[in-house]
């Protein structure tokens, strides 16, 4: 979230799309309804009428996988009707910049596409630069090659009728949504988006979100109170686990993972960021060397010195272009190339797409280590349906883990608040926190490498691993302080001296010469200089009156509660909306939230900076080279969809997606055997695969077994009654479950066809409770978003038939 949960109350219009917030983030509705109480309009767009829809002022149905068409139509509406916030668009976006002549778009493909590699050469996706290296601009927006005009041209095809034909959303509903939402494109109105996995879990997931970002920029809704782009993140600490990079492509703090072509720290830094020639750009990423050096110092301590590139050589380097995200990881496991597998608090045997492939892949492992609080389908995969344990070689260690209230530490919520929690009691038996497990395992590995010879022992032996308390237990405070970082020597910065051993109180103080450490620069400042844990704060002062609660817990970065908040003021620092002023430039200083950088507003041509400080040019990109499939989002059908051709262009699917080709990776395009669009979701009463919640009788009582929701129209056509047992089948597998026949799903009229959509929860698995049904992911396809590889769980094709 650029904003935070409490901030939702300040919106004048809330679009909930790609999210079922009332069911999956139930307490968010405290704040959604407070906005509604103040007159805000709540819009919900979803293929299925949900508990969220029940509270919406406007509900509009759309066919799964057509969000870009829906939102592209909104961009057209905003531009055609001059609903955009022109001051913001002119100053804070690249709308006035001129696009390179070589850039073009034709029949669903942008310039530079290579069908052999399924990749784009992005060299034409650029803004023209003048002799000084500054972007060429036309502030009148008249130049047909300026971004705003190019945007207009691109979305001219997204007429409301065409959009309706693709999405199945009635024209009147589209008009209502477009009108209501675009009314926030004025200085004193805020519109916000609540999205979640309903947007990310598509082959065009990232572009779904980008389309909405562009709408938010056009309407001047980013950086303001009650606005923003708000990802309702799916797990309790998925923000923190992402920040701390249990991910293949990054290191803690979103620093890039080094690649094979970068043998030295300098070679790595040369590729790490782009520097703008514009003196008014903050060029934030020029601090990159400070962050990576401080990370290496936290990892390798005294062993990391300038002469050895601070231990950079010890970091593993994947080959350039190597993908090892979940789907590719499973693919390699299926090939037998992965021998050992740690799975901590995750249930891939039910949660990953084409779960049958995942389960088989695990039989190819030599050993599996799993930690959790209950048994699950991953730990017990060897005795799962269709498997004979006597034929499964995999050795399995199942470690009993502590639950959250059984350990001390912090979690970072969707609004980036890092909050500290305490241990309520000592768990029974041999239960250990995952922190303790990891601490002990690594300590043992270090011991083995120091007593015996082994392969490339340097990173292991040189790793700082002093994270135990006096009793030898994992000490979360010690780790949290290492993440925050220390001054390693006395350092004087701007006449102020910081002593060796003091906590770094902001990433602005980090050094590139090895005099500071910080395990994650974003968390520098989570401790005060004297070592006070700011994440543990519980004071509820509210100086702005906007519910920022700056002394409750701590928020990254540097306790800034709303990201890009310098875009909430005009170029002179005057709040666009004085009634909900996050920031104001008063008598030469910022008042309000922690500003996005200390510099004066951009009207000060000498010292002032542009507001989007993390962007190279300091302004936001309505056009940019960041995405794999194009600078403007374009509608493509899901990999498995009901249509034989894309009604928008000749390009049916996202041209940049990776295709998996194992024998079990089957796909069923427009196939009469699997005629219904299916989407998957979770329910309020269970969590993800149910690995935790299915063991709780209060929750299984409320949602006991797997079900598929289908419309009355489809039920009638298939002779299915409410509560009947049915089989849902895709080309990859089948699941037996209960049919829930409901008015909340309705067939879509797509072109001249009637298309049925159904939906299933993925909350169940074969292990427990007995006969509750198996995972819906036995049905889902192995395919991911072109940028993130997030699987397309939200749109694929199935058949539903009564069980005989």
């Amino acid at each position: 979230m650029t904003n935070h949960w409490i901030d939702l109350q300040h919106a004048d219009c809330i679009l909930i799309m790609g999210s079922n917030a009332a069911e999956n983030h139930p307490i968010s509705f405290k704040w959604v309804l407070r906005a509604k109480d103040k007159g805000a309009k709540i819009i919900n767009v979803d293929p299925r009428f949900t508990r969220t829809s029940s509270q919406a002022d406007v509900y509009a149905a759309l066919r799964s996988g057509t969000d870009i068409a829906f939102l592209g139509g909104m961009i057209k509406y905003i531009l055609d009707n001059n609903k955009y916030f022109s001051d913001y668009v002119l100053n804070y976006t690249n709308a006035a910049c001129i696009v390179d002549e070589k850039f073009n778009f034709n029949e669903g493909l942008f310039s530079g596409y290579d069908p052999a590699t399924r990749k784009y050469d992005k060299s034409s996706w650029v803004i023209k630069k003048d002799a000084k290296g500054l972007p060429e601009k036309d502030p009148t927006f008249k130049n047909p090659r300026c971004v705003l005009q190019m945007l207009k041209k691109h979305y001219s095809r997204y007429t409301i009728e065409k959009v309706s034909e693709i999405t199945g959303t009635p024209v009147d509903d589209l008009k209502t949504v477009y009108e209501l939402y675009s009314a926030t494109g004025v200085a004193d109105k805020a519109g916000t988006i609540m999205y979640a996995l309903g947007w990310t879990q598509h082959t065009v997931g990232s572009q779904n979100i980008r389309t909405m970002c562009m709408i938010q920029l056009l309407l001047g809704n980013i950086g303001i109170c009650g606005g923003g782009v708000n990802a309702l993140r799916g797990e309790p600490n998925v923000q923190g686990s992402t920040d701390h990079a249990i991910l293949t492509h990054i290191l803690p703090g979103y620093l890039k993972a080094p690649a094979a072509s970068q043998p030295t720290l300098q070679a790595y830094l040369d590729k790490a960021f782009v520097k703008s020639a514009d003196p008014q750009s903050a060029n934030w990423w020029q601090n990159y060397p400070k962050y990576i050096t401080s990370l290496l110092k936290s990892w390798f301590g005294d062993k990391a010195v300038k002469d050895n590139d601070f231990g950079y050589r010890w970091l593993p380097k994947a080959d350039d272009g190597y993908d090892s995200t979940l789907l590719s990881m499973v693919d390699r496991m299926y090939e037998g190339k992965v021998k050992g597998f740690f799975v901590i608090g995750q249930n891939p045997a039910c949660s990953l797409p084409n779960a049958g492939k995942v389960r088989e892949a695990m039989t190819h492992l030599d050993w599996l280590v799993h930690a959790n609080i209950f048994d699950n389908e991953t730990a017990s995969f060897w005795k799962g349906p269709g498997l004979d344990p006597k034929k499964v070689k995999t050795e399995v260690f199942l470690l009993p883990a502590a639950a959250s209230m059984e350990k001390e530490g912090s979690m970072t919520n969707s609004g980036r608040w890092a909050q500290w929690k305490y241990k309520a009691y000592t768990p029974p038996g041999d239960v250990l926190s995952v922190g303790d497990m990891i601490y002990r395992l690594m300590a043992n590995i270090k011991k083995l490498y120091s007593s015996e010879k082994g392969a490339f022992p340097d990173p292991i032996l040189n790793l700082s691993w002093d994270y135990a308390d006096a009793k030898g237990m994992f000490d979360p405070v010690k780790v949290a302080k290492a993440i925050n970082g220390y001054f390693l020597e006395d350092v004087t910065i701007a006449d102020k001296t910081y002593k060796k051993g003091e906590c770094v109180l902001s990433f602005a103080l980090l050094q590139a010469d090895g005099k500071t450490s910080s395990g994650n620069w974003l968390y520098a400042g989570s401790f005060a200089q004297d070592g006070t844990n700011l994440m543990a704060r519980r004071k509820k002062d509210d100086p702005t009156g906007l519910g920022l609660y700056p002394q409750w817990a701590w928020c990254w970065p540097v306790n800034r509660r709303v990201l890009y908040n310098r875009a909430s003021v005009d170029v002179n620092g005057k709040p666009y909306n004085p009634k909900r002023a996050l920031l104001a430039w008063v008598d030469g200083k910022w008042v309000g939230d922690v500003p996005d950088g200390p510099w004066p507003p951009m009207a000060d041509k000498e010292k002032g900076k542009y507001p989007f400080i993390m962007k190279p040019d300091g302004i936001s990109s309505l056009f940019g080279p960041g995405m794999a499939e194009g600078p403007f989002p374009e509608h493509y059908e899901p990999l498995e969809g009901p249509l034989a051709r894309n009604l928008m262009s000749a390009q049916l699917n996202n041209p940049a997606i990776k295709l998996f080709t194992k024998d079990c990776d089957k796909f069923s395009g427009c196939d009469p055997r699997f005629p219904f669009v299916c989407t998957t979701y979770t329910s309020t009463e269970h969590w993800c695969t149910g690995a935790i919640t299915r063991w709780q009788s209060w929750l299984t009582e409320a949602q006991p077994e797997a079900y598929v929701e289908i419309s009355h129209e489809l039920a009638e056509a298939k002779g299915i009654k409410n509560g009947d047992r049915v089989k849902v089948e895709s080309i990859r597998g089948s699941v037996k479950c209960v049919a829930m026949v409901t008015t909340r799903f309705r067939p879509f009229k797509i072109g001249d066809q009637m298309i049925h959509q159904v939906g299933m929860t993925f909350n169940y698995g074969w292990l427990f409770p007995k006969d509750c049904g198996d995972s819906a992911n036995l049905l889902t396809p192995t395919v991911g978003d072109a940028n993130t590889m997030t699987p397309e769980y939200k749109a694929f094709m199935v058949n539903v038939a009564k069980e005989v």
Partner: protein
Amino acid sequence: MKVTRREFLMLSGQAGAYLALSSCMGIDTKPVKEYVEDLKKIDKLKTAKQTTSLCYYCSVTCGLICSTDPKTGKIFNIEGDPDHPISEGALCAKGAAMLQTTELNEHRLTKVLYRAPYSDKWEPKPLDWAMMEIAKKVKALRDKDFILKNAKGQEVNRLESLAHMGSSKLDNEECWAITTMMRSLGLVQLDHQARV
């Protein structure tokens, strides 16, 4: 301030309420056992040690107050934290059921379970044995498969045959420790729920 103790406003009062004492853990179709004409739980709450925690399902992270018996250290009640500025004491079905994830749930794992190759059963094993056995397996695999240089002759110092998944349900400090450990071992295949 290690433990946040909230003051409950306790009024004296006679009440005829009762508590059904049947097991609240696991599926239980037994009848509600008996009535007790006292205020056992509310009295326990008055003297309980109260610890603040956070709900660990969705990313709203509502505040929790965990009540434990100061004598036995056992948990007996988990409710929303009314001081928490986001949740203000509220909890959804899952959050309200949090007590069933504690040690009171008979299904909780409490011992290391081990499954030998081709075996059809779990065997309980000592914790220390598992911790050393896994460390040995990591070392053996790493020593066998570690890649110093790739096909192009570039120095890569990585291990491809060991992979890691999870988790976004852990604390920040645990997440960071995992990344730190796995990268130092040379892993390039690490990923978790943030991807899905």
